[in-house]
């Protein structure tokens, strides 16, 4: 093989998570009480649009979670040598974006650098001017062609988007027509009216918008830096894509790492009461009384000391950054764990008075079985609601923590690090706005989609909101 796969800690957890989501989906399909609320979510157009956006982010994140090391040329027989840097599948896909590094800042779609330099001219004299970029617009010999070239590329991108969209949409129409035994024309009419249980109209509209944005970006990215370059000349679009994984990991792994503890402690406190309850309550009151930012800061500072004194145990920078990310998830989990535990304890206190639990106790069912079979499945809606509601606030928290200096590793791509790096450039004249804008836009897209989806899930699963 020309490469070997590398499994970082967070990669393993991500794929475990993916597997458990798939298993849960299979389980939910066969159980009516879970299928009903999910069907309610499926009927909400806004939620399904949000899901389309989310799945795009997840795809990028998953692509970025398959890591590999390339084998170097000229390996001796029987012993392969591998490159020292770890790449992800996304890096391989985006290698043109990654490798075209300029000297420093350049505006989106620019051909010239952002700041002037002394450049030797053809006649031997030196002049102080904006130099041409090494890659951005380098395919143009005459700078005045830039406008037409950009228009041509946008046109090509849109055309590609329309073709793909028509193919997708006709597939959807055909399947609707087949399911309802309708003619194709009637199916189109139903789709346009929004007269179908699944809101295909909203899904297709969102897909169309994303497709055209993606295709235009793709066709422009062939010749330009579509979102400009940052201080060290890296493509901002590539940085933003790489940051997706960091955001997703922090949003999902954090809650899932701590979920078992919150579930076990919360249910045990509510079920056993007495001294178990006292101990668990003491534990979470103590933890939650420390302001979250300070606890995170204290823990990350400790980790920094540990990394500084144990540098030899990390083979690559990526492994070190990955460990820090995982640790950040753990410590964020410790702070968000307490509120879920409190909720679960309250719910269990209520449930244990229920007749069916009393009946199980009377029949001599063991404690562990009662908690596992009778109580845990009935508090799952709280867990689900907490997980989806926490996601967006965690993504936002990452940016703030990186700003404070206790976020992810400075070498890791993240929206927080992008904002942090670009923040000081606001004082420049003219201002360097594209890094900030790109980071905020990508973050806004993910968080907004997550919020909308979370609202739909909460409305469907919270029994107090059911009418």
């Amino acid at each position, binding site marked *: 093989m020309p490469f070997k796969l590398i499994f970082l800690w967070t990669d393993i957890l991500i794929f475990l998570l993916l597997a458990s989501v798939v298993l849960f989906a299979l389980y939910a399909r066969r159980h009516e009480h879970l299928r009903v609320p999910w069907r309610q979510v499926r009927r909400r157009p806004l939620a399904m649009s949000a899901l389309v956006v989310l799945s795009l982010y997840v795809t990028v994140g998953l692509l970025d979670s398959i890591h590999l090391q390339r084998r170097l040329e000229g390996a001796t027989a029987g012993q392969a040598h591998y490159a020292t840097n770890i790449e992800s599948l996304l890096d391989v896909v985006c290698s043109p974006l990654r490798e075209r590094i300029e000297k420093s800042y350049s505006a989106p779609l620019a051909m010239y650098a952002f700041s002037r330099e002394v450049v030797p001219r053809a006649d031997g004299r030196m002049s102080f001017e904006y130099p041409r970029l090494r890659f951005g617009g380098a395919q143009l010999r005459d700078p005045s062609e830039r406008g037409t070239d950009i228009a041509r590329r946008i046109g090509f991108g849109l055309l590609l988007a329309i073709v793909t969209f028509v193919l997708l949409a006709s597939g959807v129409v055909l399947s609707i027509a087949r399911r309802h035994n309708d003619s194709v024309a009637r199916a189109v009419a139903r789709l346009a009216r929004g007269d179908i249980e699944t809101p295909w109209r909203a899904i297709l509209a969102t897909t169309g918008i994303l497709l055209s944005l993606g295709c235009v970006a793709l066709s422009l990215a062939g010749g330009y830096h579509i979102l400009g370059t940052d201080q060290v000349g890296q493509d901002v679009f590539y940085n933003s894509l790489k940051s997706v994984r960091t955001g997703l990991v922090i949003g999902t792994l954090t809650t899932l790492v701590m979920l078992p503890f919150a579930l076990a402690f919360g249910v045990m406190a509510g079920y056993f009461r007495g001294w178990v309850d006292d101990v668990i309550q003491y534990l979470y009151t103590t933890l939650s009384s420390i302001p979250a930012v300070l606890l995170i800061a204290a823990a990350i500072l400790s980790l920094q000391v540990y990394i500084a*004194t144990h540098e030899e145990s990390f083979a690559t920078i990526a492994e070190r950054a990955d460990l820090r990310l995982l640790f950040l998830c753990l410590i964020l989990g410790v702070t968000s764990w307490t509120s879920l535990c409190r909720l679960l304890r309250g719910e269990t206190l209520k449930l244990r008075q229920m007749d069916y639990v009393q009946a199980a106790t009377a029949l001599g069912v063991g404690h562990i079985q009662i908690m596992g079979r009778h109580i845990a499945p009935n508090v799952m809606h709280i867990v689900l609601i907490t997980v989806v509601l926490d996601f967006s606030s965690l993504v*936002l928290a990452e940016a703030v923590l990186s*700003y404070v200096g206790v976020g992810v590793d400075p070498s890791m791509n993240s929206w927080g690090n992008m904002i942090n790096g670009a923040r000081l450039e606001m004082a420049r004249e003219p201002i360097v706005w594209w890094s900030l804008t790109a980071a905020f836009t990508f973050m806004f897209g993910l968080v907004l989609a997550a919020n909308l989806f979370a609202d739909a899930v909460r409305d469907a699963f919270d029994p107090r909101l059911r009418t």
Partner: protein
Amino acid sequence: MIAYIVRRALYAIPILIGVNLLTFALFFFVNTPDDMARLHLGVKRVTPEAIASWKADHDYDKPLLWNSQAAGLDKVSDTIFFRHSLKLFVFDFGRADDGRDISYDVSNRMWASLAIALPTLLVGVLINITVAMMLAFLRGSYLDTWGMVICVMMMSVSLLFYIIAGQYLFSKLLHLVPISGYAPGFAAAKFVILPVVIGTIGGIGAGTRLYRTFFLEEMGKDYVRTARAKGLSEVRVLFRHVLKNAMIPILTGVVVVIPLLFIGSLVMESFFGIPGLGSYTIDAIQHQDFGIVRAMVFLGSVLYIVGLILTDISYTVVDPRIRLQ
């Protein structure tokens, strides 16, 4: 009432001991003082003598928990735990790495934090209540639907964006207020306005959504239907009955954070150059000054517990159904 407060205050002691032990473990067991010394001196030119002298300078050259070389009571008191952790209980925070007295800095800086955080909280709560009540009054209408959509969108924007965009718009383009800085006394007003406005805007989305659910919950109750059946106008029902009862969850949510206002907001203070406790903490984190971080963790938990006790007391004040035993 007084007996209850005393009991709650006593209950806080084991929690504070827990916080203390946790920070002690984090700062002295996970990282030994030797590690700290190495970090501060730089990894390359570390000699055992340099570490020893750094530890002696910062009073870390003692055993952690038990000094077997000392005599009598000093066996316990001449240790790092006693000198650095237990003293937090009497608010003696020791010295920072640059030799300044932390307690003195804290007592000086907290007023600047309060000058930003208190107006932000008050203005924010007032605006949130007003908007939430309006949306609840118009529930089900287009204005309500779109209001909620805007709230979700405002919630989805990072606070950092509000700060950076606000500074750019109001200070750099419009030159309305200074971009950052602080002055004591009434001169602070022009520096306080922008952080307060931005803090308020950043909180509207989440706050309005939460308060709207409180209002809607009250509106669905029987006494409201009775009031309407008696022929009271909707406005009167809203202000005389719903508002009063919805204030209970709103107030208790506000009371719990009041003591924490002294700590201030890390991000706001460092962006706007406010010399409060938030920027103090952020500087300490960036300079890896463990003494200050430890002090702030302890102070934060004390204030949080004070907030919890105040919340319980405020319940009895605003809700006559609750009596403290």
